[in-house]
């Protein structure tokens, strides 16, 4: 006979406003097997938890149902509380009468009935709950950081400084990411490269960091503490060990007219190249698509001129497997290309802004390269079409962002600030030029941000027009920008020399594919999802995977760096122990009933099912059965639903528990 305790939470008034909690408690008392039922204002508070602990001891409870908020919110809290009172934490279940009841229904009668029924179902379930013991698994104290932008670099350095080994993987030939492309940074206008490159060098020199550039994640196996990550090192065609970075090959390469994507295609580079002079590692890569040797088999100049003999045309993609304990994902962002509709995206393009057709309509990053001292124009603001200095520049904010009808509803967060910065940089370089900004709102929350924005208007002469642009078109060598000024209620037409679009910040293309390899979730825009928006903002729901930077959502540099350090701290917390405790929600096989059809093995997404031989004492084979490796099992339960004889059961979600709930319908 069970002795279940039922605790109904008012959640202040969040629940009790619509649910008659006293009535629910009274009804709960009458359920067979319930030994104690009560209601309380805030169950999650200290006194609330104490109430629960006291009842566990005084009433000798062997199961608990807390009817309160979502288990996703407080299940851990109450399980911990019960555990401290001596009850196995897995004998605690939560009845969600807030998110699934009081907040979504207004009729008090209906909500009370529903709450009572939810509680009844959970009471029946908890009767079938079994005591479970946490599973301990060893932790490999090596971290993988995916992405070598500022977030990835920060996370890698922090973890490495703590004494743990870090494997840093970057897709491009050099680390540095977007920050290496920027000219100056807001709100201080210090040079981006000046603060970025030392960190890049630190990474290269750090004894605890293994750097894989020009590499991608091929596959991820395993689980927290015990990942096996396969990294594909793309063929560089240059031997990293032999190359001294002298740069002769690049100077001699006859192919010199390849648009450099680092410079947003404004500058040119040879076929054997480093993306920018301060690249780390400073080892060139042969762009095989554009290399004459690879295209026609003729040339081979770089190999001939290379003193150390580092150029190797025969190099192939290489797969490296690393044992990893924790993964920090810092794959960053890219700017929405408005000219074309990204494949498979729900987002609609902006044909009306002429991007991609009118050469002097550029995006924010292109402007950064124009303004950068190391950029294609040496820091001069010259428009791409004819190299003239633009006298009137129009900046458009919220291109893509906050445009629900175009498919993106979020705010890209950094554009207000960088557009303000752009107007300043422009004004600094073209003193008599005029900057216009079309904007919806100026969003400047951040230390020193609003002051910075005001400066662009008050000191740097930028004209801010509140309103939207409906159309722009080429007229001679001018671009006519038609828009409205809603403050004055008039139509505006500006003949601009150049237009800069603050396009939306988006996750990297293929972010969803990486997420699928990692088994982490992502939102409708492909931004990675954190485990909890407020309380677990740097962890993924998948244990052992952490997030840093703009891959989770638009972020500026300080936010990315903070999150990176936070993720690093999470990794270090994990690495502080030799073993970690896992939720014991894993599948177990009943050896007696298993007939070894291995349906479970066929459907297991984790490869957790193995074949086990059962032998008698003399060593004779009795039978072969399935066996689930508890360390590898992810706990999805697909095996159980597939098992014809139900010889495999997922702890925590057994058939008995579920059937009990169904019986109580």
């Amino acid at each position, binding site marked *: 006979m069970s002795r279940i305790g039922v605790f109904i939470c008012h959640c202040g008034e969040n629940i009790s406003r619509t649910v008659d909690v006293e009535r629910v408690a009274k009804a709960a008392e009458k359920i067979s097997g319930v030994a104690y039922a009560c209601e309380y204002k805030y169950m999650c508070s200290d006194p609330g938890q104490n109430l629960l602990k006291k009842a566990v001891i005084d009433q000798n409870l062997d199961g608990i149902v807390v009817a309160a908020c*979502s*288990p*996703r919110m407080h299940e851990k809290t109450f399980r911990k509380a019960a555990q401290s009172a001596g009850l196995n934490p897995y004998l605690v279940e939560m009845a*969600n009468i*807030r*998110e*699934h*009841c009081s*907040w*979504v*229904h*207004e*009729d008090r009668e*209906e*909500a009370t*009935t*529903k709450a009572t*029924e*939810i509680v009844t*179902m959970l009471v029946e379930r908890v009767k079938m709950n079994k005591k479970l013991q946490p599973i301990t698994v060893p932790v490999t104290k090596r971290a993988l950081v995916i992405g070598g932008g500022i977030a990835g670099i920060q996370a890698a350095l922090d973890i490495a400084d703590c004494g743990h080994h870090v494997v840093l993987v970057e897709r491009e030939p050099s680390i540095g990411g977007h920050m290496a492309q920027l000219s100056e940074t807001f709100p201080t206008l210090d040079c981006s490269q000046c603060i970025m490159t030392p960190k890049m060098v630190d990474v290269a020199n750090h004894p605890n960091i293994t750097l894989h550039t020009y590499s991608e994640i091929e596959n991820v196996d395993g689980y927290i503490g015990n990942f096996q990550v396969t990294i594909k090192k793309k063929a560089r065609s240059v031997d990293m060990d032999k190359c001294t970075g002298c740069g002769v090959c690049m100077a001699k390469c006859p192919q010199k007219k390849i648009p450099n994507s680092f410079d947003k295609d404004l500058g040119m580079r040879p076929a054997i190249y480093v993306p920018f002079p301060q690249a780390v590692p400073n080892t060139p890569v042969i762009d095989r698509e554009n290399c004459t040797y690879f295209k026609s088999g003729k040339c081979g100049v770089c190999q001939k001129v290379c003193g150390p003999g580092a150029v190797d045309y025969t190099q192939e993609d290489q797969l490296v497997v690393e044992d990893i304990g924790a993964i920090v994902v810092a794959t960053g962002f890219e700017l929405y290309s408005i000219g074309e509709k990204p494949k498979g995206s*729900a987002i609609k393009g902006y044909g009306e802004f002429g991007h991609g057709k009118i050469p002097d309509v550029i995006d924010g990053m292109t402007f950064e390269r124009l303004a950068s001292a190391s950029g294609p124009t040496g820091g001069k603001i010259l428009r791409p079409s004819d190299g003239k200095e633009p006298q009137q520049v129009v900046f458009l904010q919220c291109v893509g962002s906050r445009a*629900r009808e175009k*498919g993106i*509803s979020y705010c890209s967060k950094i554009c207000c600030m960088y557009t303000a910065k752009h107007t300043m940089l422009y004004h600094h370089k073209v003193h008599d030029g005029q900057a216009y900004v079309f904007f919806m709102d100026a969003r400047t929350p951040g230390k020193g941000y609003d002051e910075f924005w005001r400066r662009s208007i008050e000191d740097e002469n930028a004209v801010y027009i509140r309103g939207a642009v409906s159309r722009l078109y080429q007229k001679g060598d001018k671009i006519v920008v038609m828009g409205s000024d809603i403050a004055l209620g008039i139509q505006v037409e500006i003949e601009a020399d150049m237009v800069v679009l603050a396009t939306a910040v988006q996750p990297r293309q293929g972010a*969803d594919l990486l997420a*699928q390899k990692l*088994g982490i*979730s*992502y*939102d*409708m825009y492909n931004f990675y*999802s954190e485990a909890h928006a407020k309380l677990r903002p740097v962890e993924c*729901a*998948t244990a052992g995977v952490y997030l840093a930077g703009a891959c989770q959502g638009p972020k500026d540099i300080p936010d990315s760096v903070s999150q990176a350090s936070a993720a690093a701290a999470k990794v270090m917390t994990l690495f502080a122990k030799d073993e970690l405790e896992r939720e014991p*929600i894993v599948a177990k096989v009943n050896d007696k009933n298993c007939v070894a059809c291995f349906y479970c093995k066929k*459907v297991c*997404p*984790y490869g957790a099912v193995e074949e086990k031989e059962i032998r008698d004492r003399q060593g004779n084979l009795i039978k072969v059965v399935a066996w689930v490796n508890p360390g590898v099992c*992810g*706990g*999805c*339960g*697909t095996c*159980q*639903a*597939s098992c014809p004889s139900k010889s495999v059961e*997922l702890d*925590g*979600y057994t*058939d008995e528990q*579920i*059937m009990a*709930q*169904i*019986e109580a*319908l």
Partner: protein
Amino acid sequence: MIGPIGLIRRIGPIKEMIMHAEKLKHDFEPKLVAFVCTWCTYAGADLAGTSRMQYPSNVRVLKFPCTGRIDPVFILRAFQKGADGILVSGCHPGDCHYMAGNFHARRRFATFRKLLEFIGVDLERLQFSWVSAAEGGKWVEVVTELTERVRSMGPMHEFKELELEECWSGKLDTAELKEAYEAIP
């Protein structure tokens, strides 16, 4: 994938009906059971809660780690135990927390519903959906639609009738039995 924007607009009238119109009383309130995965749909239903969206109170939610864990027997049992409509909902393809559980579930239920259809169960009572953690609005839409549909269909007699039936030889031919039988809603 349906974005939340589109949804809010679509939910509008329903929400209005619930919140502003005179609350409609129905002769029949169906019992709905939702089998959902914890990572996507359960979280989506939580989001509907935190966003204070309103939907009919007929649904009871059973939480599973993954749709891959949901056994067709549960559906059968729920119908036998009085469910008038059933919803099975999980993560969108590719979003499964366990990589592939929902893919397996998709095949399993594609097959199972064909079987139920052949047996003569009206599939209008059985809804499958993908509702992500971000789609509180879609959760509301799916639940509201199913509730209204099943309400208009009336109670699910078939399985409940079977529960009360006996083989002829075990039947006690009494008025009481007849009465009990006729009392089935």
